[in-house]
């Protein structure tokens, strides 16, 4: 995967948090992982990607980050249902942002939200993914990109 591709998602992360009440977000150095040991936290919002690039983009986050993020976008109800909703919405927004560069052929699904590790259906175990570490308000989350040419 090209550095430019990762930069698109890094820009998308910065853009997302720029629209919250606490815009400062730290992006760590991206790294590669085998999909048989995928990165995951409490909740994971997964977007399936089809078209010239196939695979998925997911945002995985601890509950505590999601609770604070809900408050930071003005949502006072921080219950489970809204945390699930938010983790999917973040994944959707980051993937939608990528279409600015990749165009309409970067086709994205509605979010699927799970607890913990994505299944092999979403994340083929033979492949590898890029992990972009995200730190916001001292809480760590990750954006994970697993794309391959069709």
């Amino acid at each position: 995967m090209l550095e430019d591709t990762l930069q698109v998602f890094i820009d998308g992360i910065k853009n997302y948090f720029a629209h919250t009440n606490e815009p400062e977000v730290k992006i760590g150095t991206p790294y590669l992982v085998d999909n048989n040991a995928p990165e995951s936290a409490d909740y994971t919002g997964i977007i399936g990607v089809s078209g010239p690039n196939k695979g998925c983009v997911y945002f995985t986050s601890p509950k505590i980050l999601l609770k604070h993020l809900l408050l930071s976008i003005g949502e006072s109800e921080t219950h489970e249902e809204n945390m699930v909703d938010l983790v999917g919405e973040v994944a959707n927004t980051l993937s939608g942002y990528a279409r600015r560069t990749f165009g309409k052929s970067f086709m994205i699904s509605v979010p699927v939200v799970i607890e913990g590790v994505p299944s092999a259906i979403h994340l083929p175990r033979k492949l590898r993914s890029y992990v972009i570490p995200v730190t916001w308000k001292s809480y760590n989350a990750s954006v994970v990109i697993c794309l391959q040419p069709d």
Partner: protein
Amino acid sequence: MKSYNLMIVDDSNIIRNKIKRAYDKEKFSVVCTATNGEEAIEMFKSHPVDVVTMDLTMPKMEGIACIENLIAINPDVLILVVSALSDKATGIEALEKGATGFLLKPFTEDQLQDALNELTDDIYA
């Protein structure tokens, strides 16, 4: 000031809530909400709706198809697309199908309010 009946269409509860917090309460009142395109069409038929905020990526029926259906029912309805899909082609397609404006996610409450006001002010431009 003219007042408008608003329908919010988005599969995300937190986005629907955000839109409810943001709109100008003197100018708009929410008459119904929907979580997908199919539900939106049913709501649209049974409620007096002037303005719609429309997500594009939704289950069951996506936003573009829903816009076409709503315009077929009432060509005068004002539709503000509120979507994360940031490519130009999608924006142009939505406008060609009958949408009146486009607001990218993520958005601030001020940006939403401005977009809704621009949409309705344009009628008298």
